[in-house]
């Protein structure tokens, strides 16, 4: 069952790409595949101010992952204990069916190995009690990793803080 969620606090993200590079460094990947990626959208003027989105795109580790269903060799798997979707590189034959199946472009092509590589939430790190690579080094700590319910709580609390009108009234 899918247990984890990776929450990007977009208010704090500066679109710097640290996550993307640390991910590649950790997996020792060549130029090309990006298991996670920051996509800049904008900037454009909104209400007189320039605004942009820096959208973080990892794998979403679906509860019902189409890539796993599509994979003909059983290389693409969902880990029973926590629902992490990962590729067993020994079984991957490079057929790219998962690339076709995923609506979000999560499975990436590694031209050096001729196989697919994807975000696995750095499950070796998770198993060692650590956070995924991207979350650990995120410049502003805008990436948070945890159980889904903890992450939704974080978002609610942050939104509540931002709309609460508890500022001091300034007489001038």
């Amino acid at each position, binding site marked *: 069952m899918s247990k984890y969620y990776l929450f990007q606090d977009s208010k*704090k993200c500066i679109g*710097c790409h*640290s996550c993307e*590079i640390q991910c590649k460094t950790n997996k020792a990947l060549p130029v090309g595949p990006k298991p996670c990626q920051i996509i800049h959208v904008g*900037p454009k*003027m909104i209400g007189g101010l*320039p605004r942009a989105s820096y959208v973080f795109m990892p794998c979403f580790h679906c509860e019902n992952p189409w890539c796993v269903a599509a994979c003909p060799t059983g290389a693409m798997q969902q880990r029973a204990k926590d629902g992490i979707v990962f590729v067993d590189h020994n079984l991957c034959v490079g057929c790219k069916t998962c690339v076709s199946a995923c609506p979000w472009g999560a499975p990436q092509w590694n031209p050096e190995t001729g196989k697919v590589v994807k975000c696995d939430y750095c499950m070796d790190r998770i198993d060692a009690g650590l956070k995924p690579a991207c979350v650990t*080094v995120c*410049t502003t700590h805008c990436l948070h990793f945890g159980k889904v319910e903890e992450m939704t709580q974080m978002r609610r609390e942050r939104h509540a803080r931002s709309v609460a009108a508890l500022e001091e009234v300034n007489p001038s």
Partner: protein
Amino acid sequence: MEKEVYSLCFMCSIRCPIKVLVKDGQVKWIEGNPHVAGMEGSLCPRGAAGISLLYDDQRVQSPMIRVGERGEGKWRKASWEEALDLVGSKLKEIIDEHGGHSVVLGERTQLATHASKTFLKAIKSPNHFTHDALCKGSVNTACRSLFGYTDGQMGMQYNKAKHIVLYGRNIFEAVSVKEVNNVMQALENGAKLTYIDPRVTVTATKAHRYWMIRPGTDLALNYALIHVILKERLYDAEYVDRWVAGISELQDFVSSYTPEWAEKETGIGADEIVTLAREMSKDKPSVIFHFGYRGANNTNEIYLRRSIMILNSLMGSVEAPGGFFFKKGPGEEGGKPARKLTEQKFPKISVPRFDKVGTPDFPLPDPNHGVGQMLPFAILSEDPYPLKALIAYRFDPLGSIADTNQTKKALDKLDLIVAIDINYSDIAWYADVILPESTYLERTDCVQQANGLKPQMFLRRQAVEPRYDTRDGAMILKQIAERIGTGNFFPYENMDELVRWQLEGTGFSMEDFEAKGFVAYGKKQIFMDRRDGLKFKTPSGKIEFKSSLLEDAGFESFPVYEPVTAPSGGKFRLVVGRNALHTHVSTQNNPYLNEICSENELWINTEKAAELGINNGDPVAISSPVGSGEIKAKVTDLIHPEAVFMLHGFGHEAKKASRSYNKGVSDSVLQENVYDKIGGSPAYHETIVTVKAA
């Protein structure tokens, strides 16, 4: 076997504290030092690409000796013995014939800078300069003119600030991790951010107020802000009465610089200027008008930087929580700093510096850094004397000093160019001998004296053995010194010995750094007493709006504002800057960084582009009075119509750095070598370029 090493990053000059995980002699992982507030694991993208640098097979792998013409790219590999002997014998000939002062060494300020300075002092050369002057010489001079401290001796307590004003200080793209997180914390706490820049940056997208100012007119804006603040008495009167010299002179001076006047010059509404002045006053003294990191745009740079610092002073935000503070050294805690090799006794130097800093010709720039952009002029004119040899220590005059073509002409006159570098930089490519330095992960470095609200020391520790035939910079200089008879000034056999020598008398040992990567002299933040205890190092002991430093040297404290003329007819003011992925000219060939950002583009305003028939993505021809190039256009509404913008540091010429070779255009090829003749900074934004569809 696994080990963890606390060290310091060196993908840029910030030197963020890091933790390095090594397994079987290989670096497996780097993260920000978790024990350091503001780091807590964080790395910027360049820091995250450190391993990519370590294992890059396109960096310089062994000493190289040029066999073709300069810049032709014909090399042969050499042993260290041969390369060092060659450099030693050539230098010796030059010193014997022309004197030690004919040798110049330029570098990026670094932890072993005291070794570089020692190298020159030992041969009686005053000609050490750092990259700093090219970045912020005028900020330094402005700071000394007001407070008696250099900018490097001042910090900003962002996390307690209530309003931060940034003049093109693109804090969320030109990333210093701790700074980013402290500003982010301020924003989380409800602080306001005002961002002023002719171009929309990532920082602009996070700001509460963005002003697309006419390029080059920030000083007019500030004079109007000061006008409003004085007229409406919005300043911290008690603080100003106690600590400021020259308030009435300032008041007279700004009386004609009204917000309405500034609106015409800057394009920012008069009412908006008044509003900002009032807002800042409400939040004083916990406000920061940021005096900039790079401050090298215009020929009157020192006066812009002074005006920013004057605004802070009026708000009482100098040595205030949430404002500026003076960095405290170990002495404040009764401790001693690490020793430096420059403490030794050297032979007397009787000639002026090559850049004439400290002489009546150029009295005010900081001689600790010199003025690098004078190098081509000094070589070409042989004034004050002929220069014969350049040691470029991880500093690239071709990419950093404006007007590359002129710089090349000057370099061609030299008898010897030695590059100490990690990469095939353009200056390495143009050198006679390349002495390759080990990366920061492969070497121990000198102690970092980290002054601040809490004085500390940090250490860069070797994590792995050098992957290629490279050496530590401070060892390379020592080994050259041994060949020219000055080895006695380098009393160490390896970097550990040097560090231990530095730590003698501090009460700390090298082992003390092992637990957390740093040592602290005390535990509390130190602020001076704002009522009576502020120690300004000016002659008056006050903040000198009317500056004795300037006026004693024959310069005005408040010169009349000179309007900025708008370029027209396909001409634009060239402005440059950074993004989060690259450091100056040094990272463009890094595999991971290059993958995301491999070339620069020319930002041009949509309407102007339409007039010139330029579409987004088109190649355009760009030319200035000194150089030209072809670059892709990025057509956007988000840049002022008078400006075009490009990222600094592209258009490399070194072919062995194949990923960055010939990608984009080098801003320094286009820029004219003009500068602030008082403060010392280059004026990188004074060049007017012509843009045409290619």
